[in-house]
């Protein structure tokens, strides 16, 4: 459980990191080469978060209903379906696979 004190300590640390990131780079002094790599950082982070949220539980690799749900979302994206449908299909597929298991 989270207490008021731990909550405030967590909040301070999270905001501090966000702010530190935001002030770390001076925009004017950025060569194009670094800008291209900076632009790719969100892509790298989000791909990593997707992999972990799909394939891991509490620090161990697991393949379960979520993986099938997210794969179904990938098929929807490949078919160029609207985003709302992509997300609903992911949740419904995951729920149905769990129900069947």
């Amino acid at each position, binding site marked *: *459980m*989270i*207490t*008021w004190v*731990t*909550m*405030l*300590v*967590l*909040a301070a*640390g*999270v*905001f501090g*990191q*966000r*702010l*530190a*990131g*935001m002030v*770390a780079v001076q*925009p004017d002094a950025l060569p194009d*080469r670094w800008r*291209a*790599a*900076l*632009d*790719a*950082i*969100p*892509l*790298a*982070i*989000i*791909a*990593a*978060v*997707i*992999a*972990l*949220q799909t*394939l891991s539980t*509490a*620090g*161990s*690799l697991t393949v379960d209903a*979520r993986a099938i*749900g997210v794969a179904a*979302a*990938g098929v929807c*994206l490949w078919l160029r379906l609207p*985003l709302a449908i*992509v*997300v609903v*299909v*992911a*949740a*419904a597929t995951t*729920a149905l696979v*769990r*129900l069947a298991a």
Partner: protein
Amino acid sequence: MKGMAWPGRLPLAPPAGSQLTWGELLTIAATYFSVGAAAAVVLVNGGTDRWIVIASAVLINAVTTQLAYLAAIDAGGSSWVAIVSGWLVATRFGLLALAVGPRLWPRGWRRAVAAFNVFDPNAAIAAREEDDDTARRVFTVTTLFLVPPWFVGSAVGALLADRLGDPQLLGLDAVLPALLLAIIWPRLATAAGRRVALGAALIAAALVQVAPGGVPVIAAVAAAGLVWLPERRP
């Protein structure tokens, strides 16, 4: 600073000339509402006071931090171990701020507000715009469709936790990865984008069992360097 502020109100619709769509905005709102509600149920069921759950949604403003803290405590860790693991998973927000910060507001109170509200989707959506002014606008409007629904969802989840049951039964844990996949999907059309995404996913998956929580994602940032590989000419 000319061109840094808007003449009128905050943008509440996809800015003209941006890649952002209404479908994305509304799905982000619905997703973060459900993610907030689902996480709040988990936290309340884990013994956290419901008012702390609501306050921490607003003040920590990072769901993975709350859940990482809880996971570390459940695994028998001390408060400090759990706090550090909560901080570590939020390091990615610092790195996202590092990546998009130079394109948003270089100084002043707007920079602090933007920093507080850096999430995965708004950073990724800002990063895919070529023009800095458009990046600022899409960041703002995405944040407005993300953070308030997340607060409301957290409050609903915290107050109704006893009646909502197990969020996993509805498959809600697949909603956020599916949304994030959709957001990066256009960037997977290029070979460089695919290299970065696949490299990052492999690094994270390879490290998840051996490194503390948060570290696999930080290490995956190295995959951003794959944009520097020369393109193959056909």
